[in-house]
Structure formats: structure tokens, C-alpha cells
């Protein structure tokens, strides 16, 4: 699949340095593959220029699906397939259907969102995420730069990251 890719990996000790490094290197035209950090760094999304996620739109669609499915199911079951009189109400009366409809909406919106998120971020069974540096789960911030996506050479990128305060710069092949 995405094998034989070469990455330059910059390690940062401090999130402020990282944040400024991201801003400055992007100004210089560096395309950053991804940044990994042990905790959420405020403002990093903006600095990396990430667009807002469209996940809410998917959630709304899934929610709408849940609403209509739940209503259709109940109206069909209690109104047509097996009409029953409960508490003297009409066969298909709306108010008692609302709780189930609400739950179905929430359920499908939640499941749909999780599923969409997994697909969109390419997470699937037996797929192991690439570890650029295991210390990103402990105390280091890791910036990965894809060589294939950048015009600059390996040395230039290393020098740039060092100049921006990276405590070390490594290479990583997958």
C-alpha cells in the first residue's frame, strides 16, 4: 500500500515551540504530514490549517435516517402489520412513538458518526497505525514530514526543523 515512504521526523519537547515551529515551517512552504502529541495542543488545528470536519453533516444525515426508520417501523408495526389497541389510543398515534424515535435517532447518529470517523481516518481491523516515534504517547511532540510531498531535500528539512527548535530530527521509513 503506502510502503517505502520516507519521512523526516522532528521531535519537540515543548508545545509552544511546536506550535510556533508549525506556523513558521508552513509559512516557508513545508507540507507537514501530521503532528502527534501526548495531549491536545490548543490552536494546533488552526496552525496546521486543517479544515473543519464535516462529521456533523454525516451525523445529521444518520440522525435523520434514524428518525424516519423509527417512525416507519412503529407506524408499520402498530398501525398496519399487527394493529393493537393500547390504552384506547389510535393504532398509529404519534406521542408514544416519540421516545423510541428519539432513541433511534441518537443511536444511528452515534453509530453512524463512529463508523464514518473510522472510515474517514482509515482505521480498520488488522491495520496498524504507523508509529513515527513511540515517545509521542509519553512526553514528546512529533512532527512528521513526508519527503515525497515536499520539494525540499532531506537535509534542508532537517536544518529547518532544527532551526525551529526541534530537539532531535530522525528519519523513518515505512
Amino acid at each position, binding site marked *: 500500500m503506502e510502503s517505502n515512504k520516507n519521512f523526516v521526523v522532528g521531535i519537540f519537547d515543548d508545545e509552544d515551540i511546536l506550535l510556533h515551529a508549525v506556523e513558521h515551517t508552513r509559512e516557508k512552504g513545508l507540507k507537514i504530514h501530521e503532528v502527534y502529541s501526548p495531549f491536545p495542543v*490548543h*490552536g494546533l488545528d488552526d496552525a496546521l490549517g486543517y479544515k*473543519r470536519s464535516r462529521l*456533523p453533516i454525516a451525523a*445529521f444525515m444518520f440522525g435523520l435516517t434514524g428518525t424516519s426508520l423509527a417512525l416507519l417501523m412503529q407506524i408499520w408495526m402498530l398501525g398496519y402489520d399487527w394493529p393493537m389497541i393500547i*390504552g*384506547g*389510543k389510535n393504532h398509529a398515534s404519534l*406521542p*408514544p412513538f*416519540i*421516545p423510541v424515535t428519539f432513541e433511534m435517532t441518537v443511536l444511528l447518529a452515534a453509530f453512524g458518526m463512529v463508523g464514518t470517523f473510522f472510515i474517514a481516518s482509515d482505521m480498520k481491523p488488522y491495520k496498524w497505525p504507523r508509529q513515527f516515534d513511540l515517545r509521542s504517547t509519553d512526553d514528546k511532540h512529533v512532527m512528521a514530514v513526508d519527503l515525497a510531498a515536499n520539494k525540499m531535500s532531506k537535509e534542508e528539512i532537517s536544518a529547518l526543523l532544527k532551526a525551529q527548535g526541534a530537539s532531535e530530527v530522525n528519519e523513518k521509513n515505512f
Partner: protein
Amino acid sequence: MIADEKYIFKPATKQKLYILIALGLFLFVIGVFLAQRSGHHEGAEKHASIEIAKTLVASSEPAKHGEAHAAEAHHGSAIWLKRIYTSLWQNNIFFGGIGIIGLFFIAIQYAAQAGWSAPIKRIPLAIGHWIPVAGILMVVLWFVVKGDIFHWTDASLYVKGGEHYDKILDGKRAYFFGPFNTSSFPIFYVLRMVLFFGLWYYFLIWIKKEMLAEDINGGEKHWLTARKISAYFLLIFAVSSSVAAWDWVMSIDPHWFSTMFGWYVFASWWVTGLATITLIVAHLKGAGYMKMVTQNHIHDLGKFVFAFSIFWTYIWFCQFMLIYYANLPEETVYFIQRMRTAPYSWIFYANVFLNFVLPFLLLMTRDAKRQVSMLKVVCPIVIIGHWFDFYNMITPGAMKGNGGIGLLEIGLGLVFAGAFLLVVLNALSKLQLVAKNHPFMQESLNHHI
């Protein structure tokens, strides 16, 4: 850190509010005139609704006596005068609720140790200044309107063996009239009213003192004291808001009860108050005040309005569905009156549309909550929607089939809105618009979501 900033209550703004009040009075007078003239034509409608109430009540043995009596309640003032009383009561509950929510909002912010709201806290504080006005109006009004709105004040209901004796109300007598076997003066009821408004006003003054002292002295001491006051207030408000809802709104339908009612009234007040705060902040920002309030703060306010519109709907539906499903005549009569009888039916459905469907759809996206222009559309919808909500809580019980919504009600609503804004903006112009030494100010200035 924060420059001195004061809201200037311009004479032009004042004039606009006076015009609003004058317009309201004008419409009110025309409305009264129209109501006096049309008094006779409403007779047929009224009888129809009484018939509905009677058939309903006939099937419920325990409530039979009282409800039938309530439906026949012919005594009292003329219909147009009753309409004025009911409308006054409704407006005072509605705007008084917004006032008390001002204080409640501040208390919540302190108790939750919220940082984002530091620059906007003076607006709910100013809104809180309506509490004493609403309190005085409420007590005075009560003595004027009690016979016409509150059926349970009729002393003949408690005469054992009497023609009007009402067993159910006699069972609730102690709650209104106190432990002694009297039914002349509802000492408990009036005491509660005075006590609640007294407590709320006392807490407003107390917390305001700390907030203003912080401007001068700085430090964390005042903030910590204010948090302590807030915790006490929230404890008191949890009980008093519920009991107030039973007393002032639910006791209009004295045979009917709902265990959701305290929450229901609170939810309605709370979302209206949030919409009012948001609207005032939005307008102040539009007028060039409060530069430090950014889209991020607006977003938070928008989320509040959005979330609690849904919360209100949740409470509304909980109350409606349980009664609908259980189908007990003494409970369903409340909704039959509102859903089936002429002047209230469209309001009942409009209520859900204005207070749930519109805010839910209009404020759903992130961008909508961050747009001042969108909030300026949604907040008035929510405020007007909840005005109708309170209309439908109060009027059908007090007026039965004779209620109406016309120039009289709209006019009084405008008068109250104008007076409310006069008091609130006047109070705001006397405060520092933004807290000067709030310990969380820096956090709020960097607020980013």
C-alpha cells in the same frame, strides 16, 4: 487590564422605549374597548367549552364536584376586566422570571467556576434589577386579581356541607391558608410570595456588592465569597422556583397537578432569560461596546439557547406524554382545554413550533451559533414563543373559554417589555459594563472554541 467602560443610556434609546410603552398602552386601550364591545358574542363559544369540560369531568368521580363548579364560575368581574387581570398576571410572571434568571445565571457561572462568561456577567446582573419591580407588582396584583384568577380563594369552597364545598380543595387548604382552620386569608401563600421575592432580592444585592467591590479591590477574595453566596442561592432557588411555579401558575387550575410543573416553568424562564441575555449582548456588541466579547463568547451563548430550547421541549414532552398516556380525566382536562378549545388551540401548536422546531433547526450548525445576526433572529423568536407558552399556562385556566389574544394582550406585553428594558438598561448604565478585576478575565479574553 480592562479599561473602564460604561453603557450610555442615550436619550434617543430612552425615547424609543417610551414610544414602545406608549404604543403598548394605545393598543391596550383599543383592545379593552374592543373586548368590552365583543363581550356578548363570545357567549356561544364559552358555553361550548363548558360543555366539553362538563362531559370530561362527568367521567371522573373525585374531581366531578370541583371541576363542574369551576367551569360554571360565572361570578367575578366582567370578561374584559378578567382579561386585563389575566394578561397582567401572565406578563408579570413572564418578565419576573426573566429577572430572576439574571441572578440565576450569575450564580450558575460562579458555582461552575466558569471563566468564559467573565466579561458579560454585568448584563444578567442588570437584568436581575427587575426582581424588586416584579415582586412589588406581584404582591399588589395578587390582591387585585385573586378572586378572578384564583378559584381556590373563594371562601365558600371550604364550608363543610355548603353548596360549593370542594373536598379536593379542602384537602389542599392548609397549603394556601396555613395550619389554622381558616379560609379567609391565604397567609402561607402570601408569605411564600413575599419570602421568595425578599430572598431573591437579598441575594441579588449581596452578590452585586461582592461583584462591585471586586472592581475596586481586586484579588480573589470577592470571587470566592460570591461563589459561596451563589451556592446558597442555588440551593434556595431549587426549592423556591418550583414552589413559586405551583403557587403562581399551577394553582390557577387548582384541581389539576403535574409533578413536572416546577421544572416546566423553570425551563421556560431559563431559556427566555438566556435568550434575553444573548440578545442584549448582541445589541451591545452591535453598538460598539464590549470589544473583548468575541465570536467565541457569542458561540457559548448560542449553545445555551440551543441546548435549553431542547431541554424545555424535553420537559414539555415529558409532561404531555405522561398525561396523554395515562389518560386520567382529571389530568387530561388541562390539555383538552388547551388543545381543543378555540382561542388556545393554535397557540398550543405554535408553542412547540416556535420554541422547539425553529430554534432547533436554525441554531443547529456551528456557524449559526457564532453569527450575531442569526442570534438576533432566533432569540426574539424564543422570547415571543415563551411569552405564548406562559399565556397558555395561565389564560385557559383563568378565563376558561372566554380568553382571547388580541390588542389587549399584545399591548400589555409591549408595556411590560418597555418597562423591563427601561429598568434593566438604566441599571446597566450605572454599573461598570465589564468587571475590572475578575480573576478569570484573562482566561475569558483568550477564550477560544
